[in-house]
């Protein structure tokens, strides 16, 4: 049994990741999977409705699941179903609790929105849930509310928003930040509702169909009116009424769902249904895509699954003619969303870490192999995820903070796999599990601010530099972190366990030294390449801007470690302490400089991130202090130290 355990673990991990390759299926008669794959243009990028649904839910409520804490099953089966309700059946969507207001962040906001204790308190039906809630395993108060619950106080919110808006983002109070965030969420939600059909209108389709019939005559009537000739007053009035509705759609619409006409000059300029319908007043023909979506709305509300599915198919077929490549990408993206490769990696990394740590105490060979296999599979899943993102975007791997988190984790884990393959002592796997898990959690936090595949601003629009400077410098972050985490393993194993024998300690030292060398290479070359990019773009090699300074500090810190070691100023423990301090230096450059607020906005996560950064820095300092305990306090060295004087022990271990 013990012999086959690694193989079993490998197969289980492969099966777990392999499950994600099974295409998502519909839970009822409606083809919501197909609906979610339909492409639209948002923020300059063509993406599937599925992505719109997921990122909108993340922005509004910080998670993709729409659920009530007292009801065990989710309220909708998929994000796409929620989006369908928002777009086509707003009354239903208004009742879903999808607006996050945290009473811990800002109790004032909760009271501003008129939410009483009765509304926020959760009363669980069964006793076990109540027990869980007492023990803080289940929430005691609600943090997500429905549009209906918030609607009465929107005028109050509007007033507070106008007061908070002019305040500089960096100095806003939690209440002001909460107000602005909630206001923006409500705007996003209402824009979504105005995206395809006017919300609250039950029979938009038949209005469009009757308009279609009278359109030529109606347009004639308006022309006549404008020219001051006799005209059909009733008809002209009708036309203007509907027209105003279209204008409203055009103004608020969030999605550009209508592809450009075949003869349009700019084939990237998709439009929204409102403006496409308005164009009908010129052409005399209502836009077929807008009509299709209006019909979809009708069939969705009337629960006519067959007709709905037929319309989804029609829309696909129509796009297939001229936008086949975009359609293929948007299909792939929807599949990618459903597969959640990074989520699966996160889970596997966590398991790998625990197995590797246990392997130092028991069954080193067997559990070490298991951990290695888990890391390997998680790494492959993450690689596939990053590769898919690169293909979707047509870009090198790192384009924004989110993708840098993915890449830092990926690079560090890649190095760990090499280390583990060489040394086979579980250390590489443990470090991989830890770094992989943490970076993916950071990436998840960053994804809460919206779509992570963004269009690149003009100055960044250069694959050459994104592929060289950004990738190399991010690898520098990854390896500096890795050296720090390996040092953490040394310190923890040495201080708290007896497992740090001389061989392990020496091996760890060589690992840390090797990784510091690699980090020096990457951060130095990456930083200088950044300078050269700046020279190409702005005509100056170095501008002392915060991000540049941060990268430079990493280079110098790594150089200090190497010189201090070469000069014999530090030994094993000194090297470990300096490598741990490298964690602080790197976290500062990666996130800290973004919080300076120089020409950069701080968003929700960044405020929270500041505290996490502080906690992280303090924890690292505590660990450095811990590492400086006299050796006889280290569990691993205690026996050695009691036999020999502490000084020689330090020299020998």
């Amino acid at each position, binding site marked *: 049994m013990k012999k086959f355990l690694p193989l079993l673990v490998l197969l289980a991990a492969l099966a777990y990741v392999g499950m994600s390759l099974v295409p998502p299926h519909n839970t009822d008669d409606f083809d919501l999977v197909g609906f979610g794959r339909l492409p639209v243009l948002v923020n*300059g990028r063509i993406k599937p409705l599925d992505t719109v649904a997921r990122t909108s839910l993340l922005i509004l409520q910080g998670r993709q699941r729409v659920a009530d804490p007292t009801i065990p099953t989710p309220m909708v089966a998929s994000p796409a179903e929620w989006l369908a309700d928002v777009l086509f059946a707003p009354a239903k969507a208004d009742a879903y609790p999808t607006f996050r207001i945290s009473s811990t962040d800002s109790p004032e906001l909760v009271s501003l929105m008129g939410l009483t204790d009765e509304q926020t308190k959760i009363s669980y039906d069964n006793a076990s849930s109540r027990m869980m809630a007492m023990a803080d395993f289940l929430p005691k108060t609600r943090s997500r509310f429905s549009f209906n619950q918030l609607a009465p106080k929107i005028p109050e919110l509007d007033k507070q928003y106008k007061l908070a808006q002019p305040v500089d983002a960096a100095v806003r109070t939690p209440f002001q930040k909460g107000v602005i965030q909630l206001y923006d969420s409500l705007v996003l939600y209402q824009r979504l509702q105005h995206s395809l059909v006017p919300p609250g209108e039950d029979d938009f389709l038949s209005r469009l169909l009757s308009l279609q019939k009278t359109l030529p005559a109606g347009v004639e009537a308006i022309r006549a009116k404008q020219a001051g000739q006799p005209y059909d007053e009733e008809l002209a009035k009708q036309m203007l009424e509907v027209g105003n509705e279209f204008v409203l759609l055009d103004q608020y619409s969030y999605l550009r769902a209508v592809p450009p006409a075949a003869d349009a000059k700019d084939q990237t300029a998709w439009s929204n249904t409102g403006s496409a319908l308005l164009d009908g007043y010129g052409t005399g023909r209502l836009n077929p895509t807008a009509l299709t979506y209006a019909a979809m709305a009708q069939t969705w509300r009337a629960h006519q699954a067959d007709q709905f599915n037929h319309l989804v198919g029609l829309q696909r077929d129509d796009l297939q003619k001229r936008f086949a490549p975009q359609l293929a990408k948007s299909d792939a993206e929807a599949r990618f969303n459903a597969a959640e490769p990074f989520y699966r990696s996160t889970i596997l990394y966590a398991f790998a870490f625990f197995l590797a740590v246990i392997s130092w105490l028991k069954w080193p060979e067997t559990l070490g192999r298991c951990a290695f296999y888990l890391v390997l599979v998680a790494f492959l899943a993450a690689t596939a995820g990053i590769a898919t993102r690169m293909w979707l975007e047509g870009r090198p791997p790192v384009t924004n903070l989110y993708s840098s988190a993915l890449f830092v984790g990926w690079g560090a884990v890649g190095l760990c796999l090499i280390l583990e393959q060489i040394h086979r002592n579980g250390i590489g796997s443990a470090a991989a599990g830890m770094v992989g898990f943490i970076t993916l959690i950071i990436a998840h936090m960053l994804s809460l601010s919206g779509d992570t595949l963004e269009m690149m601003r003009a100055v960044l629009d250069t694959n050459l530099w994104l592929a060289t400077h950004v990738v190399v410098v991010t690898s520098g972050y990854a390896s500096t972190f890795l050296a720090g985490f390996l040092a953490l393993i040394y310190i923890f194993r040495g201080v708290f366990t007896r497992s740090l024998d001389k061989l392990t300690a020496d091996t760890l030292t060589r690992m840390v030294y090797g990784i510091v*060398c690699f980090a020096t290479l990457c951060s130095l070359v990456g930083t200088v390449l950044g300078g050269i990019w700046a*020279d190409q773009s702005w005509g*100056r090699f170095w501008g*002392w801007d915060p991000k540049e300074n941060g990268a430079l500090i990493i280079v*110098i810190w790594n150089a200090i470690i190497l*010189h201090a070691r070469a000069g014999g100023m530090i030994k094993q423990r000194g090297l470990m302490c300096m490598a741990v301090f490298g964690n602080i230096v790197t976290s500062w450059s990666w996130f800290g400089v973004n919080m300076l607020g*120089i*020409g950069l906005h701080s968003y929700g996560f960044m405020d929270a991130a500041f505290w996490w950064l502080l906690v992280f820095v303090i924890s690292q300092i505590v660990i450095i202090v811990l590492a400086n305990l006299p050796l006889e306090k280290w569990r691993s060295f205690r026996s050695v130290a009691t036999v020999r004087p502490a000084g020689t022990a330090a020299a020998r271990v």
Partner: protein
Amino acid sequence: MNATVRQFRDFFVSLRLTVVLLGLSIILIFAATLDQVNLGVWAVQQKYFQTFFVLWKFGEVPVPIFPGGYFVGGLLFVNLIAAHVYRFKLTWRKAGIFLTHLGVILLLLGELFSGLMQEEYNMRIEEGETKNYAESYQFYELAITDTTDPKFDDVVVIPKELLEKGAAIQHPKLPFRVVPKAFFSNINLGRRSDEPTAPPSPATTGFGPNFVATPIAFNYKPDALNIPAAYVELAGPEGTLGTWLTVYIPPQMMTMPPQTFSTPDGHTWKIALRPQRAYKPYALTLLKFSHDVYAGTDIPKNFSSRIRLATPDGRDDHEVLIYMNNPLRYAGLTFFQSGYDGDHTTVLQVVRNPGWVLPYIACILMAVGLVVQFGIHLTGFFRKRRAAAVPAAA
């Protein structure tokens, strides 16, 4: 060698000194990064890097509190050279280290070089407009132009430093002395009609008396608008010609009326404060500016300027396209697409940086050096492992 000299040498070649200096440089850079919020990137460079000591003002007395960039960088440079001269051995094992440090030396020299020599100007050109000068970002000058001859302008410029000094200036081309009364790096400009209780203006002629100029603190934020202003009195041999308020507001924000006057000798003049100009022996004409955003967003997708570059003698006359990451390099200057203003005006950054090639060489040297060095380590490591593994297997 006597003991003192040896001590001296040991100090300058020691690795301990290297580590201490590198540590100091981290603290310096970190402090400078934090201080950028208050001072902006220009002032920070002056205060922390282009100086031997960082000064702190206790009351009015500046006290050095920390070694500055020149100090740390200079010592590091001496340390680096001394250590290499002292320990230099031409062996393969040291080749990587040697190359890397040679790269660092070049990089430090390059940075010093550009710190001393680099000039940054900008050119704002509207479509169809031709310009033969670039303007400074941060320096201003007072221009007094003799406009008597409609075909020809004769300009005398007085840099900001002289305006700040306040001493009267006499120039052979001017039939009057220029007496700078006051210079402000930033003011609030209000109409006198809106602020009837404001104290009377020192200006006696031009548009000055109609405005209230209130000095305010210089704003260091990167995109802040600072309005410099100066009160200048012109004193002729027969007595004063009056005191002018001169201000510079970027033309895209607001155009101030030109201030003209004439002297008894029949000459007409114009007086204005403007960004310092650098005239070029050639002219740029903006033929077409294009600027695209991603559909349905404000995210700029690209911007580019089609420029005609011509010299008066006709030796050079060609069209170039300048866009992001594709600058024009001409006559020792580099023209970068840096921004735009509306749909028909381009803003180019004009930079002279004679040391620009040094970082490129340094980068290659350092990269090759580190790869060689770590490659030697790595192969050594694997050889040792293999050597250790063979007897174990046997």
